[in-house]
């Protein structure tokens, strides 16, 4: 007979199981081209296509009309943000402002969208496919299942952030860099944002999305609910585009720290709310 692992002390997490659940969810995601192809297209539009088209249009084709219009709009930025804009020419300053304050904050919605879409379908999807029954009868604890699914949702979002901003950096540095005296992106604030602020925001959003996806009855409903959860971060991204949020020197660090605290609290609450009943789809009846 095959030896089966002995049960662990109650309350202890088996990280091998967490990794197994996360890995399996990710493998299914990779197999599901209908899911990830639109997501890749979305990322390409926001990180590559739109920035490349507009910045090339301004810097290489000399679209004076667009430059003048955007230059006027820059006057609305906070003084601290305006002071940080590099470049001596109108084209250079306009391109820099677009790259740092407009395109990048808008693009940050993409990893969030991907993470929430994966997260929204993860538990409710198990129920819809009937595989929740398998997990509910498995020896994995609800905590292990929850964390596995959280990691499986978090990773695509963060990989999108890193790869997306990597490509974005390349494009803006190649197109705008010569106008402003060299490669400039990511700026110090954007390094903090990508490495320190985005991860807890993804985790926080996912903790809420996972709670929602465990409660709602269909993936579609979970995704709609996830859309509502995403709104606060979209607002933060637009605020950043004006330079107001990260104007203060250390604001990014504080916001990230606060987001981590709230995210960890949210994850704890989310894990506590998870149950086998929800995997079986009988929670709503209890």
């Amino acid at each position, binding site marked *: 007979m095959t030896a089966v692992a002995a049960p662990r002390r109650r309350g202890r997490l088996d990280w091998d199981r967490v990794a197994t659940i996360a890995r399996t969810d990710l493998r*299914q995601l990779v197999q599901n081209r209908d899911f990830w192809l639109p997501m890749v297209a979305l990322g390409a539009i926001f990180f590559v296509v739109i920035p490349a088209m507009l910045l090339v249009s301004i810097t290489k084709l000399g679209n004076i009309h667009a430059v003048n219009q955007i230059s006027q709009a820059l006057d609305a930025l906070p003084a601290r943000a305006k002071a940080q804009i590099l470049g001596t020419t109108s084209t250079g300053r306009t391109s820099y402002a677009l790259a740092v304050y407009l395109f990048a904050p808008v693009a940050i919605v993409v990893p969030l969208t991907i993470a929430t879409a994966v997260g929204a379908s993860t538990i409710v999807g198990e129920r819809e496919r009937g595989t929740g*029954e398998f997990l509910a009868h498995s020896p994995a604890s609800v905590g292990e299942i929850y964390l596995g699914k959280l990691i499986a949702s978090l990773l695509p979002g963060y990989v999108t952030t890193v790869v997306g901003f990597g490509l974005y950096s390349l494009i803006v540095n190649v197109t705008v860099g010569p106008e402003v005296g060299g490669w400039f992106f990511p700026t110090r604030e954007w390094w903090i944002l990508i490495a320190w602020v985005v991860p807890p925001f993804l985790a926080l959003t996912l903790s809420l999305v996972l709670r929602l996806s465990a409660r709602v009855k269909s993936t579609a409903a979970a995704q709609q609910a996830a859309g509502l959860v995403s709104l606060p971060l979209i607002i933060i991204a637009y605020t950043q585009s004006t330079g107001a949020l990260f104007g203060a020197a250390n604001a990014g660090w504080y916001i990230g720290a606060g987001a981590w605290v709230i995210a960890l609290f949210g994850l704890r609450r989310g894990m506590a709310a998870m149950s086998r009943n929800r*995997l079986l789809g009988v929670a709503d009846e209890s």
Partner: protein
Amino acid sequence: MRRRRSTPARQVRVNPGVAGADPVPVTIVCDAPTRPDPGGPADPDAATVALVDVHHRFGQKVALAGCSFTARRGAITVLLGPNGAGKTTAIRVITGALTPTSGQVRVFGLDPSIDGESVRLRCGVVSAKPALYDRLSGRDNLRYSAALYGLDPDRAPIDEAAERFGIQHALGQQVGGYSTGMKTRLALARAVLHAPDLLLLDEPTSGLDPESSAAVLTLIREQAAAGISVVLCTHLLLEAEGLADEAVVMENGASLLAGAPAELTRRYWPRAIARFSTAEPDHAGVLADREGVTSYRRLADGRAEVELDDLGRVPELVRALVDAGAKVTAVEPFAPTLEDLYFAIRGLQRGTMTAVPA
């Protein structure tokens, strides 16, 4: 491993207070005293599974209402009942996937709501839907299960399990392309991959063609023969007939009756029964007054059914019929099946059957 068999505790039980049904006072008259709680063993820890007076509610909806039964080691225990009888909920309670509202559940002597991981590590479950990951290959489904049950996926007996259920040729294919029968076979292979001590099967032949269904039942018998305890839910009486070492008849969340089918039918119909067909049905009336006949009744199809103190009296009854001028066309002993028992019990429960064999 040889199948371990012990003398089963014979149990006859009727629960008159079934939630959701009109309370019909029911008595089964048999040659053994009816026990108040025969579903529970004297020592609940002695059986692989023991449910004693288990209740579970989903809000206002009653899922289990006094469910009691035991499942012995190495035996096939069949939970029989219509849809909504509480069979699936019973399975979920056994693994600890659901914690019952009240009652006692013991699996391997443990309480699944407390020692869930220990219990689930020793259980293999096949749900009503195979619960497989369609986008993964058959092999990846098995590897996933192996890893969750603490096996090294690279060393787990994946090919052996798949071969046992005749699905090894399709391990490389995505499960989404499998037929229903293939999915069931893969789900069975997954359930036994970690060598469980208890197999819980929820309508495993649902949606299968007769050939695949028969093959799956054979495989289940083989598992039990290898010493694995099996609890199987079904509403198919014929399926249960040849499979059940123990049967539990359920309705509206309650277990109406539990025990070995042969023993249950013998207790329900304690005397020999023979059925006589005659060209002129009225002639059979002479049987009612013959010596050794304890009851006589005419069936809807015109045959006469008599209960006898001894089946050896049949020749003299035939002679009596012939002497009375009857042309006897057929005589057959009646061997009650689980199906007969099931409908008799449910008939009693609903009050549509009034006569109880004495």
